[in-house]
């Protein structure tokens, strides 16, 4: 020891009979090969390894047979050469006595090693410090090294520390645990005695990996040979300045990680924390030796030293045991003599657990197999009532209140037990050992811990179930909403298409919607366009009027009997028709234009005063359309009649009566339209008067409309007369039928024309009214 180290102590602790001398009389022996090796896949804390060989495959000694699964996991290797005969569930050495997945190897007895070499040779470097720490850690993980003190925590996880740019870590102290405080166990003792240099060279590797400044090896003072051996080795390795072999007083449980740290440094690991928070990493001496073998020889963890002791064995001692060797095989080596009530404990007498049978394998954490006689370790007598003596509290090394924890655990008041730091209990068994009532206190704590963990797991699961349920509900609601929306959209589309069909069927003469929208698209320029259209319209109208006059004259002449005039009449009619279609087009354009304008005007004005309401069935627009439709039908009926007559069909009479009816309908529609128009005019006259500028124009258009209406009425009379005449001619079978029919057609056309004019006029009036309103508001 080169440094003077101030030793501390921890509270509590006990001094049970050591019983170590039985197993230290002989050096470590090599256990012979058993008939079968059983290797559980989960020999460490964390996720079980994944098998990477299949049944029937031949494996070599040291060959990897299972890969680590995730970060907190280590690999597994074949302890000897042989054949994988099964990967199946087998009983494992666990307090539960349950089965778990194991790989079963039948050794071939040849012990052929797989090719393996030092990490230094592999990377062709001379010194360990030339290798990146991460690579060394990877090697340790690949060699399947897990804590060999008893817990089996993957060593690589403990060695993965954060480094800054300079490569320094928050770790300053490495502690190697060679205390081995539990009675009977001497595996670490024998290891340190016989392989002290391996332990120290493992410590060197660890110091490099952690970038720690110093290393302390804590050993209880009941192992003087081990202490001497380590000091010797430290001298020969020139490591006395870095590595201190510290002798600590014998007290159970000084080998507990937290207790050893407290003894050596005086620091306490915080509740629920880890030693790394204090800048300390603690490793078992056996782990250090295994790290040395992995790094400098490339040998994975395939064997360990285990103590086989107890009064039921004739030759207790330590054996180097291949992992997976059955307990029964080892007990035979030690001369085990089954007792009346046979009992074999894996681990020490304080923290170990009784095995249900001996056909169980040795695993990485098996440091001792204890086969006590009945006198040596009587089975727990019946527990008596707690007398509240408080001895457990004095013995507890974790400064807990074992009595309180016992009451809470028994009453299943787990929340209170947790408040009393149940999870800081290291389950050392000191309280049970000192209990005069022989209450199995630790078992209560273990049960309570398990129950709390289970409850927490159940709570987490139910939380997840709740979330999944709520998400599912939300999804269902969304789906329903989407379905509803789709249904509505479909219904709307159907209604629209039906309406479009209806409109297309009944309303040929109505202005095309596309046209209207096209015009309204360039709304700002509509006013000049409208004026132009107006001019065109008036020009066409005058032309039509002239042509009509001429036509009338010609017709009169024809009627008087002048046959020569007929050609003129035809020519006039054609011209008339042409100009009429032109006018129709213009009127349509204008109507569209006006609509757009009206829409513009209606928006700011709020309501288009006097503007014909489309929704109102009695609006002039509607009525006019009705009238027009009726008129169109009448036209077609007349045409058909003419055809029938020309062919001399019998249907003439029925057609005639149909025409009469149609005529009546036309009259009716016209009358209704006129009435509505009149009403509208009256309504719009008020704003017209208010708008002084527009008033004359409006008055003009009103007068024009009146005259047009009169004309229409006259024309209608004429048509009626012509039809009458036609009827008579038909009845009498006269030759003039054809001519008369033509005359009727013409009359009809005239009527149409007049009506068109009237319509356009009405619209103009409406537009001017709207304009007035707009002007008024602006």
């Amino acid at each position, binding site marked *: 020891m080169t440094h003077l180290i101030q030793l501390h102590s921890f509270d509590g602790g006990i001094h049970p009979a050591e019983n170590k001398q039985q197993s230290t009389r002989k050096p470590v022996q090599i256990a012979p090969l058993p008939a079968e090796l059983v290797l559980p896949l989960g020999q460490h804390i964390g996720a079980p390894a994944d098998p990477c060989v299949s049944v029937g495959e031949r494996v070599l000694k040291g060959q990897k047979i299972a890969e680590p699964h995730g970060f907190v996991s280590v690999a597994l290797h074949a302890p000897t050469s042989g054949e994988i005969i099964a990967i199946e569930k087998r009983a494992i050495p666990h307090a539960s006595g*349950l089965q778990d997945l194991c790989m079963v190897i039948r050794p071939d007895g040849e012990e052929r090693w797989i090719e393996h070499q030092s990490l230094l040779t592999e990377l062709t470097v001379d010194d360990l410090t030339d290798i990146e720490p991460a690579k060394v850690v990877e090697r340790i993980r690949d060699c399947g090294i897990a804590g060999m003190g008893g817990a089996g925590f993957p060593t690589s996880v403990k060695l993965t520390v954060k480094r800054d740019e300079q490569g320094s870590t928050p770790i300053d102290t490495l502690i190697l645990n060679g205390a081995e405080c539990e009675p009977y166990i001497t595996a670490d003792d024998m290891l340190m005695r016989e392989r002290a240099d391996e332990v120290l060279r493992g410590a060197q590797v660890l110091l490099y990996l952690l970038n720690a400044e110093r290393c302390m090896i804590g050993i209880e003072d009941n192992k003087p040979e081990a202490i001497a051996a380590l000091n010797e080795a430290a001298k020969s390795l020139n490591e006395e300045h870095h590595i201190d072999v510290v002798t600590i007083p014998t007290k159970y449980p000084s080998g507990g990680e937290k207790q050893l740290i407290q003894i050596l440094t005086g620091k306490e690991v915080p509740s629920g924390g880890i030693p790394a928070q204090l800048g300390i990493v603690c490793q078992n001496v056996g782990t250090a030796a295994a790290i040395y073998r992995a790094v400098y020889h490339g040998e994975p963890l395939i064997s360990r030293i285990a103590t086989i002791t107890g009064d039921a064995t004739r030759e207790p001692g330590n054996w180097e045991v291949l992992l997976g060797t059955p307990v029964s095989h080892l007990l035979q080596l030690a001369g085990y003599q089954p007792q009346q009530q046979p009992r074999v404990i894996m681990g020490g007498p304080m923290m170990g657990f009784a095995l249900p049978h001996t056909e169980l394998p040795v695993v990485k954490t098996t440091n001792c197999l204890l086969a006590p006689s009945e006198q040596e370790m009587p089975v727990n007598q019946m527990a008596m009532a707690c007398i509240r003596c408080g001895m457990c509290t004095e013995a507890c090394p974790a400064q807990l209140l074992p009595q309180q924890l016992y009451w809470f655990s028994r009453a299943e008041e787990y929340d209170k037990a947790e408040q009393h730091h149940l999870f800081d209990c290291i389950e050392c068994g000191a309280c049970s050992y000192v209990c005069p009532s022989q209450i199995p206190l630790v078992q209560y704590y273990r*049960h309570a811990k398990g129950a709390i963990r289970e409850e927490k797991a159940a709570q987490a699961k139910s939380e997840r179930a709740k979330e999944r349920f*709520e998400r*599912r509900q939300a999804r269902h609601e969304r789906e329903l909403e989407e379905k509803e929306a789709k249904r509505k959209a479909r219904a709307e589309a159907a209604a629209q298409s039906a309406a479009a069909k209806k409109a297309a069927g009944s309303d040929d003469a109505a202005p095309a919607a596309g046209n209207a929208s096209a015009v309204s698209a360039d709304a700002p320029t509509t006013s000049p366009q409208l004026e132009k259209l107006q001019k065109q319209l008036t020009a066409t109208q005058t032309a039509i009027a002239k042509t009509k006059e001429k036509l009338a004259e010609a017709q009169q002449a024809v009627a008087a009997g002048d046959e020569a005039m007929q050609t003129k009449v035809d020519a006039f009619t054609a011209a008339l028709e042409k100009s009429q279609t032109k006018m129709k087009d213009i009127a349509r354009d204008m109507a569209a234009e006006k609509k757009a304008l009206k829409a513009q005007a209606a928006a700011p004005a709020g309501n288009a005063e006097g503007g014909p309401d489309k929704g109102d069935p009695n609006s002039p627009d509607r009525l006019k359309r009705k009238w027009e439709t009726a008129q169109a039908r009448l036209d077609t009926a007349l045409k058909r009649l003419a055809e029938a007559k020309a062919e001399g069909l019998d249907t003439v009479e029925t057609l005639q009566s149909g025409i009469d009816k149609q005529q009546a309908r036309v009259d009716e529609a016209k009358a209704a339209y006129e009435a509505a128009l009149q009403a509208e005019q009256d309504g719009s006259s008020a704003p017209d008067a208010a708008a002084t500028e527009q008033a004359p124009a409006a008055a003009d258009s009103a007068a024009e409309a009146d005259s047009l209406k009169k004309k229409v009425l006259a024309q209608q009379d004429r048509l009626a007369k012509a039809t009458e005449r036609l009827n008579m001619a038909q009845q009498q079978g006269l030759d003039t039928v054809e001519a008369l029919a033509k005359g009727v057609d013409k009359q009809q056309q005239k009527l149409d024309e007049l009506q068109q004019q009237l319509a356009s006029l009405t619209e103009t009036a409406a537009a001017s009214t709207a304009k007035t309103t707009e002007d008024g508001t602006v």
Partner: protein
Amino acid sequence: MTTVIIAVSVLAILALIFGAVLGFAAVRFKVEGNPIVDQINDLLPQTQCGQCGHPGCKPYAEAIAAGDKINKCPPGGESTIQALADLLGVEAEPLDAEHGAEAAGPKVAVIREDECIGCTKCIQACPVDAIIGAAKQMHTVIADECTGCDLCVEPCPVDCIDMVAIQPNTSSWYWQTPKSAVELIATDRQPANSDRSSSQDDDDPGDNSTDDDSNDNSGKGQAA
């Protein structure tokens, strides 16, 4: 007279100030939703099995908050009823048998996959989406997400879903509480018991001659 007026007006002003503060607090720190419903919902086991007659645990929590009985949850069992009684300050009642018996332990649905015809009925029935599969494809249960609610068993047309009790494994197993319960008086000890060690047999024979009543009591104590 003035003192009276001053006192009254001071009190009135104070009342106004506190009223304003309280009114502001009521608006500013308004509690969204019903907190008692969430608390009840947290106590329910979230199996979403619907055995209580409500479509899930949350609706039952709402019903309890509105005055429904607390003993309608068989998956939760007596412990849930006790917890609800503690929370709501009402008397704990025994589980209403009308809604089913308390299950012996957690269960998980397992589909016999070679018999599955891929009808997706169980997928639609699962309240937590723990069954995966597609039409005419084999389905399977995500065991970790299954709440063991039993709702998928009924709709299966080929009866290929089993409810299997979850067996403990090495990671979920934990120590049982010690068997030998503490006896109140020495005479409560049972005579020869096969579980006990041979040293028990050396006990004073006077222990064996205890009356039957005390033996019965100890038996009950041990069972509990």
